[in-house]
């Protein structure tokens, strides 16, 4: 289990949740009386993370509807719409109003409706952001497609939202003494953050922000710095759940048959219009479930078993599940024996009081066992489904190709395999994951192969993907080779991305998360945030940074990127290292009390990060003897599929079918 998730975590993210709740209730209270909440379905997930239904009810919400096409029927006359400003939603709302007006025309006695419309800032969601429920080490802005917006569309709004969120953190926890990072957009974010802080100082000179006592630095990593990692198949438990089922706002939807029947609890959602949900978690506003067979499962550290499993390599998960199953079984049996023993002694009046207490204890414990039992059932079911995928030859072949590519092992059969995938017409996203990976690790494809694959894709998946291919080319993800110099090979060696011997049961290095490949992004973090850098095991000829590193009192390497300049130059994007001082130039306002040194490093992934990278960072925190904590913030959680799907040209034109079968 991640020790970052403890409530004693230095960064109290609960404060953030409180702020978001306050904003929400202000909105609700702005309309008097009983009201009906009409929600953008995409907002309900994040909303449920900050507010339970009882909170909404306390503020007069009687019903919740989803904003969708078609008339809205409700006896309530105050309607609050909360949605993102999207054209289609405006059309639906106009429809509703039109519909109600027609009603009034036909029967003039009906009461008038009152409408209030609240936009959630462009496409950011309702609170600033959403926090993993009890993880406490992960903050996500839950934005979509930020990488594509930043690098393909040149739309920098997500930088603004990121800067605002970070400013809010600075208001709560103090200035980040140091802002370090890599990537062009990361640099823009850092600049914007410094500028915003100066503006605050000008606008309100009395609000002197002090330097944070908890946070020693902010490290910003831009997704464009490492596109290789998200294209690899994640091999941790949580990562594979995301690859197989897709996790949305810490929830996963699976067939209810997989996880078995759940003990039905009476839930507070009973009054809500959408109470058809069968979920067991205490989530209130649930999106309506199109198929009753689907079940939504919350994935968070509140589930002890999941907390233990989430960061493990999947190869280990089966063994853990079976040992937990054995333990629960033993516990049940122990209880049966002890309870029968209780009955026999029951007649003994002298022991009566004690016995009753024992029974209560037993019953209480049984309750705990049952919830543990349910969690075991859920995760065994999910793990079985994942195994069904991971045993297929398709999964293994693709994994083998990936692993050879990132390790720089050149086997000629990989192109043959990718060609076969196209011929089998597997989803385009799977083909592109391998092709882009190949292009990224080799600095492009040879012209002949490049044109061959482009033609195969266009003729198989449709000519509209000319746009997809041109997008990928523009992003430098799928290009023609222009020089023989392979920069990835240099990066791979310098940062020791490939570790040959990996013990998944007892990992020694972050590379366990991909069974032998250490995420480039996390290796970069190790350069600045850990004492020994990326070469903690076998010290190779890494620019000397590892050995010469000076660590200051706070534990962060005082040298920043020093020692890694050469390798950083070969990675695209600007490198920066800024110190934030108070106006008088002092770095720290007061002397630190020994033992109270800042020991939280905030890591911001601009353009998204994967669950695997999060697991790797949690692993780093556990390894560090200085008890450093890492708090991870990101624009959103991504995987190879969601990353590429944002770039793939959607075909939505008449006369088109989606594939052959």
């Amino acid at each position, binding site marked *: 289990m991640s020790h970052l998730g403890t409530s004693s975590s230095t960064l109290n993210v609960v404060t953030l949740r409180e702020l978001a709740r306050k904003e929400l209730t202000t909105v609700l209270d702005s309309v008097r009386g009983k009201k009906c909440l009409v929600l953008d379905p995409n907002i309900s997930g994040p909303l449920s993370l900050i507010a339970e239904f009882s909170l909404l009810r306390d503020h007069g919400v009687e019903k919740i509807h989803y904003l969708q096409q078609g008339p809205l029927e409700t006896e309530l006359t105050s309607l609050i719409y909360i949605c993102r400003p999207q054209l289609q939603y405006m059309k639906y709302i106009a429809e509703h109003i039109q519909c109600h007006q027609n009603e009034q025309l036909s029967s003039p006695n009906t009461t008038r409706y009152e409408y209030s419309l609240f936009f959630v800032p462009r496409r950011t969601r309702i609170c600033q952001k959403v926090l993993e429920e009890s993880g406490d080490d992960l903050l996500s802005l839950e934005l979509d497609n930020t990488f594509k917006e930043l690098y393909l569309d040149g739309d920098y709004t997500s930088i603004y939202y990121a800067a605002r969120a970070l400013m809010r953190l600075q208001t709560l926890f103090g200035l980040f003494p140091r802002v370090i990072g890599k990537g062009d957009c990361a640099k823009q974010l850092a600049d914007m953050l410094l500028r915003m802080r100066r503006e605050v100082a000008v606008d309100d000179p009395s609000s002197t922000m002090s330097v944070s006592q908890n946070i020693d630095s902010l490290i910003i990593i831009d997704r464009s710095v490492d596109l290789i990692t998200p294209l690899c198949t994640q091999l941790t438990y949580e990562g594979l759940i995301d690859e197989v089922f897709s996790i949305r706002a810490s929830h996963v939807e699976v067939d209810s048959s997989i996880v078995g029947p759940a003990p039905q609890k009476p839930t507070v959602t009973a009054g809500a219009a959408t109470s058809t949900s069968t979920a067991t978690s205490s989530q209130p506003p649930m999106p309506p479930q199109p198929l009753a067979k689907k079940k939504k499962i919350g994935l968070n550290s509140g589930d002890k078993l999941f907390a233990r499993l989430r960061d493990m390599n999947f190869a280990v998960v089966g063994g853990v599940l079976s040992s937990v199953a054995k333990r629960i079984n033993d516990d049940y049996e122990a209880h049966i024996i002890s309870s029968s023993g209780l009955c026999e002694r029951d007649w003994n009046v002298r022991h009566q009081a004690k016995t009753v207490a024992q029974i209560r204890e037993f019953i209480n414990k049984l309750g705990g066992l049952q919830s543990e039992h349910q969690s075991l059932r859920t995760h065994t079911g999910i793990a079985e489904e994942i195994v069904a995928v991971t045993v297929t030859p398709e999964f293994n072949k693709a994994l083998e190709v990936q692993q050879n590519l990132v390790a720089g092992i050149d086997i000629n059969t990989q192109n043959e395999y990718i*060609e076969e995938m196209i011929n089998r*017409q597997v989803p385009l996203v799977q083909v592109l994951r391998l092709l882009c990976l190949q292009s990224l690790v080799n600095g492009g494809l040879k012209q002949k192969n490049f044109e061959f694959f*482009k033609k*195969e894709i266009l003729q*198989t998946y449709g000519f509209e993907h*000319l746009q997809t291919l041109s997008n990928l080319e523009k992003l430098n993800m799928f290009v023609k080779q222009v020089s023989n110099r392979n920069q990835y090979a240099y990066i791979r060696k310098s940062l020791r991305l490939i570790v040959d011997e990996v013990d998944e049961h007892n990992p020694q290095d972050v590379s366990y998360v991909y069974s032998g490949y250490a995420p480039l992004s996390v290796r970069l973090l190790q350069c600045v945030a850990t004492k020994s850098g990326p070469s903690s095991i076998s010290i190779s000829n890494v620019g000397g940074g590892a050995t010469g590193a000076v660590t200051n009192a706070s534990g962060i390497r005082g040298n920043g990127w020093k020692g890694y300049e050469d390798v950083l130059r070969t990675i695209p994007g600007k490198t920066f290292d800024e110190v934030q001082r108070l106006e008088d130039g002092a770095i720290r306002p007061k002397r630190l009390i020994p033992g109270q040194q800042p020991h939280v490093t905030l890591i911001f992934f601009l353009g998204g990060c994967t669950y695997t990278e999060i697991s790797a960072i949690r692993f780093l925190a556990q390894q560090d003897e200085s008890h450093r904590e890492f708090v991870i913030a990101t624009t959103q959680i991504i995987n190879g599929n969601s990353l590429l799907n944002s770039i793939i040209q959607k075909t939505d034109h008449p006369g*088109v079918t989606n594939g*052959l079968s």
Partner: protein
Amino acid sequence: MAILESYEQKSLEERINKLKVALKRYQDDKEHAFEAKAIDENIRLLQVQSQLEKELEQPLVGLSLSETIHKCIILNNSSKASKLKSDFKVPDKRFWWIKLKALVEMRGWDELDKF
């Protein structure tokens, strides 16, 4: 942009016209020889598809080339499929995959035997 616009056009004629605009733009540019060729192919495919639609009385416009070949085989029209293969230089390997898949779907075991 003209390429994207072309897919928003409801009529085939309009779609082809938009593609022709895009083609012109790319043709003048040596850097984009591949794109020009692809758009040209796309126009040809749409024209063949509309012709085949009339002959086979089946919706085809908008399918990819592989899907069109597949459809032809399903509709017992192997000669049309072979013509598409040669007209658009479809590699043998892919062609056999398409054919295999189609024959399995049709349960054309006799044909499969000849493989």
